[in-house]
């Protein structure tokens, strides 16, 4: 029986030792079953009349973000007893206890006619009867209301769960349109919740498997722009792009950044055979990392940049291997039944997510970096291509439906396998790559 407390406990040590004794506010995970923490978010208070609509919007986005994590459950406003919770006045804990709200978030919002937006907020641990940490003030622009809301939600999430933030992040993906045999694809970027989609390329050429850099500023991807698959580097701000220098004697694909963004690993095909190469971006010089008459592809760096994980069919079927970047032989880590592909190292460093194929089904799963403790988190006709949230807590992937009208869409799932949810984009999407929390 596993019991994890994502709790105020550790946090309490920093802020107020007394909480460590009696922190009742926690998310319990017991054998993969999470008991969500209940929270109330009364409508944020507007300090000026112009801020009213924004205050309402921010409070709803904060609640939606928290619920989307699967770790929280909202107590709806129609159950509130406290008639009024102004930001300044004290919290009437019994009123919130009576409706079983474990956490309460109160906030006030101010705007200026110069377009400044300020949010002050407090988080309360209702059953302990204390404010959780000190109040926080965030300043931003009225043009970036959603980002402000995600920042507030991140702070609440972080303080209550002890996990790192992830709501204020962006995801690069492939936006798809058209019939299955003439599908048009283009790179796009969106907020973590599917809002604010912006296209980064046109759809004249097939694009595949983008990867956003650890600072969110660049994207590596594969495109048929030259007529043949080659690898490209794109600047997110300007959408300018350039082909990376690889020999014309073969095809390059599957590029991924090192965590420090100074190097990339990629697959290079020559004479039908695909191996893993390492390129120093400053010198544009490539070095071969694997040489085997097999398909070696889908590499991914460990977060410390010292190892890579990749898939190879050198054993006769697709399996996952790790190897030090400095050299040495690849070591096979996957041994279960079926084929293992698209390994992606967790930003925490502890897990590797992968696609598993067997018995005509595809699953997304995770295993430890030595291949132990494999767990499958999903299964369908075609699940593929996991990417990690910046805090290593959530995995997003593409699920494709079958048949002539089959199309992919994006799903997310908690690493416990719980909270599997589709992202409602309104149009087909695949190959997600989750970027960092924005500064």
């Amino acid at each position, binding site marked *: 029986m596993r019991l994890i407390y994502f709790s105020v406990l550790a946090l309490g040590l*920093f*802020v107020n030792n007394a909480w460590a004794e009696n922190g009742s506010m926690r998310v319990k995970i017991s054998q993969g079953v999470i008991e969500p923490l209940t929270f109330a978010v009364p409508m944020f208070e507007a300090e000026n009349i112009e801020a009213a609509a924004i205050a309402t919007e921010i409070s709803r986005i904060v609640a939606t973000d928290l619920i989307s994590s699967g770790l929280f459950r909202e107590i709806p406003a129609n159950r509130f007893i406290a008639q009024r919770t102004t930001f300044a006045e004290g919290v009437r804990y019994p009123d919130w206890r009576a409706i079983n709200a474990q956490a309460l978030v109160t906030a006030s919002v101010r705007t200026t006619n110069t377009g400044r937006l300020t949010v002050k907020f407090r988080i309360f641990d209702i059953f302990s009867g204390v404010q959780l*940490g*000190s*109040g*926080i*003030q*965030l*300043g931003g*622009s009225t*043009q*970036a209301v959603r*980002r*402000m809301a995600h*920042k507030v939600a991140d702070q609440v999430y972080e*303080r209550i769960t002890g996990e790192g933030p992830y709501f204020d992040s962006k995801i690069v993906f492939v936006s798809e349109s058209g*019939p*299955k*045999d003439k599908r048009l*694809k283009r790179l796009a*970027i969106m907020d973590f919740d599917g809002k*604010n989609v*912006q*296209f980064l390329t*046109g759809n*004249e*050429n*097939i694009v*595949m*498997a983008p990867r956003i850099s650890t600072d969110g500023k660049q994207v590596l991807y594969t495109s*048929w*722009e*030259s*007529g*043949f*698959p080659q690898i490209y580097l794109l600047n997110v*701000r300007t*959408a*300018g792009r350039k082909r990376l220098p690889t020999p014309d004697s073969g*095809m390059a*694909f*599957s590029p991924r950044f090192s965590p420090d963004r100074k190097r990339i690993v990629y697959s290079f*095909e020559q*004479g*039908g*055979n*695909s191996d893993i190469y390492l390129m120093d971006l400053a010198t544009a010089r490539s070095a071969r990392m694997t040489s085997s008459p097999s*398909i070696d*592809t*889908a590499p991914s760096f460990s977060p410390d940049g010292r190892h890579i994980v990749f898939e190879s069919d050198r054993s006769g079927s697709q399996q996952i291997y790790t190897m030090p970047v400095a050299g040495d032989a690849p070591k096979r880590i996957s041994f279960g039944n079926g084929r293992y*592909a*698209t390994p992606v190292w967790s930003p925490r460093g502890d897990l590797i997510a992968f696609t598993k*194929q067997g018995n*005509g089904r595809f699953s997304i799963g995770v295993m430890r970096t030595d291949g132990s403790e494999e767990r499958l988190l999903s299964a369908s*006709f075609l699940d*593929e291509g996991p990417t990690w949230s910046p805090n290593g807590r959530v995995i997003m992937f593409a699920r494709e439906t079958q*048949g*002539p009208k*089959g199309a992919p869409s994006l799903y997310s799932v908690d690493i416990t396998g719980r909270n599997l949810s589709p992202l409602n984009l309104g149009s087909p999407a*695949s190959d997600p790559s989750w970027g960092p929390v924005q500064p």
Partner: protein
Amino acid sequence: MRLIHLAFVPFLALAACTNPEGGFNGGLLGDSSSWDDPAANAEDQSDPTSQAFFEKKIGNRVLFDVDEFILNSSAKAGLDEQARWLIDNPQYVIIIEGHADEQGTREYNLALGFRRAQSAQEYLVARGVSGLRLKTRSYGKERPLEICSAERCYAKNRRSVTLLTGGLS
């Protein structure tokens, strides 16, 4: 250490939203728009030196077994015919495209398509077609010919396509 310490100290200034310009000039280079298109402009199949004749009468596709790139006997027979015609019609340069069905991950299937194209290329060269005329590329599972999710469609999508790309000049 993740906690924010002081009450109401502004610690965040939201940067301006990234605002990538949507469009760009995506010039098509070479022949990247063609995959598998039957002789696009209804060329006369009765001309035995035409692309249309090659595609319809000789057959420009050969099929592969599941997750396989080694040529089976019917693929070899198809490539034998292609080789004879290509040797007789040296005015064409050739791109061999490798394709996969949807039962596989995207990048693996791209690599598998390379292997299939390479197998076809090596066979044609062994049958006497000049390697200087031949190039390969893969589309992985990106360009299925048939769109159902059943073996009868998958079987047609696991293919290499011998594409004639105009004349040597």
